[in-house]
């Protein structure tokens, strides 16, 4: 007979969950050069990332965080905070959820959405650093706008789904899973759905 199996998570993830690295202690973020926050509590995930920056080299010297979320959300922010140290701002800005998942030794499919907020919060913190230091020109807007925070679905994803045949909100949800968690994005999504149907199909 088999004994109790391992968790649904990798050993690396479990280690980061049991011993999270670089948690921001207390509330004070004054010592940090950039602060970013993404997600919301209703959705079940919210992350804050704070960074210290070597202004000469434009590299990240310290990264701390707070996360409201499940084990994979906690572990993915923890591992991200380790990954970014020493990286240049530009390099760190381009860390993708895939890289974070890879570093964690993989994530179960239904947990991918839990890990997408960390890198977003990091980008927000980097942009916040640029803004604070009079480098607004360097602030990089996300090229695509995230509509569904819970599932990280952008306007581009919605457009793609329409091009692939989604015509109703229900079909769009089947394609993208947008709005399947907290549902707060429904109105905005429906407006975009009509817009892309009109642009591409004259509907």
């Amino acid at each position, binding site marked *: 007979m088999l004994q109790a199996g391992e*968790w649904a998570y990798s050993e690396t993830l479990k280690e980061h*969950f*049991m011993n*999270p690295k670089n*948690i921001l*202690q207390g*509330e004070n973020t004054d010592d940090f050069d950039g602060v970013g*926050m993404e997600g*919301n*509590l*209703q*959705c*079940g*995930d*919210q*992350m*804050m990332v704070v960074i210290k920056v070597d202004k000469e080299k434009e590299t990240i010297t310290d990264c701390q*965080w*707070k*996360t*409201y*979320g*499940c*084990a*994979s*959300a*906690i572990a993915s922010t923890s591992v991200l905070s380790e990954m970014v140290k020493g990286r240049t701002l530009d390099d760190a800005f381009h860390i993708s959820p895939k890289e974070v998942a890879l570093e964690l030794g993989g994530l179960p499919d*239904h*947990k991918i*959405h*839990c890990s997408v907020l960390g890198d977003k919060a990091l980008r927000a913190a980097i942009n916040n650093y640029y803004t604070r230091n009079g480098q607004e020109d360097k602030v990089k807007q996300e090229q695509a706008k995230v509509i569904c925070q*819970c*599932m990280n679905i952008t306007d581009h994803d919605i457009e793609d789904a329409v091009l692939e045949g989604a015509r109703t909100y229900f079909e769009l949800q089947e394609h993208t*899973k947008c709005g*399947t*968690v*907290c549902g707060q994005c429904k109105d905005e999504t429906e407006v975009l759905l009509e817009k892309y149907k009109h642009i591409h199909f004259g509907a």
Partner: protein
Amino acid sequence: MKVYFDHNATTPLHPEVKKEMIAAMEMFGNPSSMHAYGREARANVEDARRKVADFIGAQENEIIFVGSGSEANNTVLSLFVCSSSQCIPGTRRSTIITTKIEHPCVLETSECLAHQGARVKYLNVDRYGKIDLDQLVGMLGDDVGLVSVMMANNEIGTLQDIEAITRMVHECGAFMHTDAVQAVGKVPVDVRKLGVDFLTISAHKIYGPKGVGALFVKHGTPYCPLIRGGHQERGRRAGTENTLGILGMGKAAEMRMIEMPEEEERLLLLKRVLQKGIEESIDDIAINGHPTDALASTLNVSFTGVEGEAILLYLDLEGIAVSTGSACASGSLDPSHVLLATGVDAELAHGSIRFSMGRESSMQEVEYLLNVLPPIIQRIRNMSTAYIKGGLHAASR
């Protein structure tokens, strides 16, 4: 220390049940066979049927053994959309009334039946999880074929007044079903007193084996099998009987009948101590479910600013097994539909933990939990955004 506080999910086999099942392992005959092997199996199946019937105050021929509580619930609901004249109302009474806090096997079957032409109406519940009886009165009419209301809720433990509901349902000429999977074995259940037409039981919630359940169908109630093609269970459920499972279920019912009466008070004390201990040692919590009309074994608590799966897994590392209504732990992405139906805010639903105790739960276990839990909550809150400036929760405080 190992603590199992997840009895609403499933229960360990009662030692007596285990003993009987092991002793019966050699029994392999098909109860349908006329020879000695078959007769041995038949005798044990019928003995178990008698024990289950006795336990809920039914007659033996009113008990159908099935594969699970879910199967029993599917069977009952499916009776009401069949257009065959053999089946209950055909299309004449095609409305089904159920509640927003049922088990998914009722809710998803209802949704499927709606696609097949049934009208399904869902009763609201109040903040304690009690259904709205006035709303039920408003919904009842000539078109209603079946009302299905669970007796005890699996997540929050709230009990419904099935007796009163059944009276109302019968007055309008509809049939009454109750999913009593969580109630049977925890509170007294007497089908005659309740008056119901259908009642669902599951063996593994009462210290019996998995993969076997029973459906009570009141004598004279029209019926049609969900699984066809055999004369087993008097033509009501095809498929060779799960003899060992059924035998185990019979023994489990027998043991519950003996042990249940003296258990409730003890469990209620454990629950009080657990609740008081949590309230005194942890800030910003909310108790979910009804304060009095609820299972003595079930306590559901929401912890502000903490996600349930994280609590569950940190407790698992300490040897304590519980469950959560958070989306993340369920594999779905929505938090508990039961808590949302009671009006609990989504954030608090994500942070809910269900402690469900059982026949072997002890005060020592409760005390161990009360030692371990507060530092875990403290630890998670320390890393949570919910308590910082700019966190949505902090902003509203």
